[in-house]
């Protein structure tokens, strides 16, 4: 608990929070990291397989094969989400299934399925990016800042 947060609590509340904390199971961080590594690695391996597949059997180069690879992983993730499997895998895998593009596809698909009952426009359309939205907003913003920084450095004669 941060000091700032602590200041707002009364001594009784602070005492209880410590009392409760001593009796709560902790998140198994090491185990979660290991599982995330394994699950994330498997997803990347599947991605690598698709990459190889599109390069070997279709006319894709190493660069252009990235697009159908990502699309394939997204479709796979959407199907697993729709069939109700992805959340079970994710409970085991944690960060391993959130970080790759499959996690991103899961956030959008799950929200779209969830809000289908409120109709296509206000339900699906309005809520689809409920979880993914912040990722896009701050992703684009971060990319913008980095691009400006790069341009500035280049204008000043750096990186040449």
């Amino acid at each position, binding site marked *: 608990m941060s000091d700032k947060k602590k200041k*707002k609590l009364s001594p009784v509340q602070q005492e209880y929070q410590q009392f409760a904390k001593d*009796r709560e199971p902790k998140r198994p961080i090491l185990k979660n990291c290991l599982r995330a590594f394994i699950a994330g690695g498997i997803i990347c391996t599947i991605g690598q397989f698709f990459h190889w597949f599109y390069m070997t059997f279709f006319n894709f180069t190493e660069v252009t094969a990235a697009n159908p690879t990502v699309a394939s992983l997204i479709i796979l993730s959407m199907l697993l989400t*729709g069939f109700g499997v992805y*959340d079970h895998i994710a409970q085991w895998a944690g960060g391993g299934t959130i970080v790759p593009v499959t996690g991103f596809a899961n956030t959008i698909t*799950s929200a779209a399925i969830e*809000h289908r*009952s409120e109709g296509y426009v206000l339900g699906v359309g309005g809520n689809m990016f409920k979880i993914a939205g912040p990722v896009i907003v701050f992703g684009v913003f971060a990319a913008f800042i980095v691009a400006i920084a790069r341009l500035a450095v280049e204008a000043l004669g750096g990186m040449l």
Partner: protein
Amino acid sequence: MLAGRQSWLFRNRPVILATGVTGGPFEAAGALPNDFDVLHDDIWLGQTSFEKAEKKLLEEACEKAIHKAGLKKDDIHFFFSGDLMNQIISSSFTARTLGIPYFGLFGACSSSMESLSLAAFVVNAGGARFALAATSSHNGAVNKQYRYPTEYGAQLPPTAQWTVTGAGAALLAAEGPGPRVTMATIGRIVDMGISDPFNMGAAMAPAAVDTIESHFRDFQLDASYYDLIATGDLGKVGHAIAGDLLQKHGLAIPGEKFTDCGLLIYKDDQPVMAGASGCACSAVVTYGHLLNRLRRGELRRILVVATGALLSPLSYQQKESIPCIAHAVAIEREDG
């Protein structure tokens, strides 16, 4: 009849004439399938949304209770109900179907005992011959409103709990055969500053302890009066904390007498993390399992302490802590 600071003693001992308990597939696979009246194998109940499915569960529970008592809807004077949905739609829409004069309550997961204590008070005071107290929750609908979409792959911490899909209704009458509601203690809000909605057990445990303490103080009782004291939905984490807190306050309840509805409903191998939660948790366990044990004579007197976390998704995002409450109702055998 007011007793002490915050309790009611029901001198006329209102009777729980009948109960109706419904559940979903996850509950059917749980530890107490035989204590349900109706179990569904489809979480949608053939409806087009989770919200409609929850309403159906509640309607069925109410109709079952009325039917089992051999009564008609028109015989019931008042209907007390609460649930977790925004603007308590499950309860209000059920009241629309039933056509019974209605009090809509919100006590989050404490709604079961909040509605039961109010219904008992009204029946005890002669305000009704028959009153219905009910509550419901639906795992999908609750996740959608309070947490993430059902299929979203977020890893839950070990302190998280699983919302029960189900509904429980109790039909109270001024007279007749059945278990009696004898006492009730209304809780006050206790907020220990916990703001993690995935750790409701720890947030609610002090409220349960506060209400149990008040109950013992108001009636000058101790744990030996009861065969079982069951909290609503504290789960493993909250149950352990509540036990230790009671001990710290000099009110230790022996382990075999102290349980939690959230620990009883599911099997150990079901992936529910710290246990069950939701309005229906205390309702289905009490109106199904515990009352059946009371009827069989395995228990004579029980105290059910339904716990509720009165947060909203908005208050959580605005970094507010979780205000918690607990209401206790004593139920005894008619010969007890």
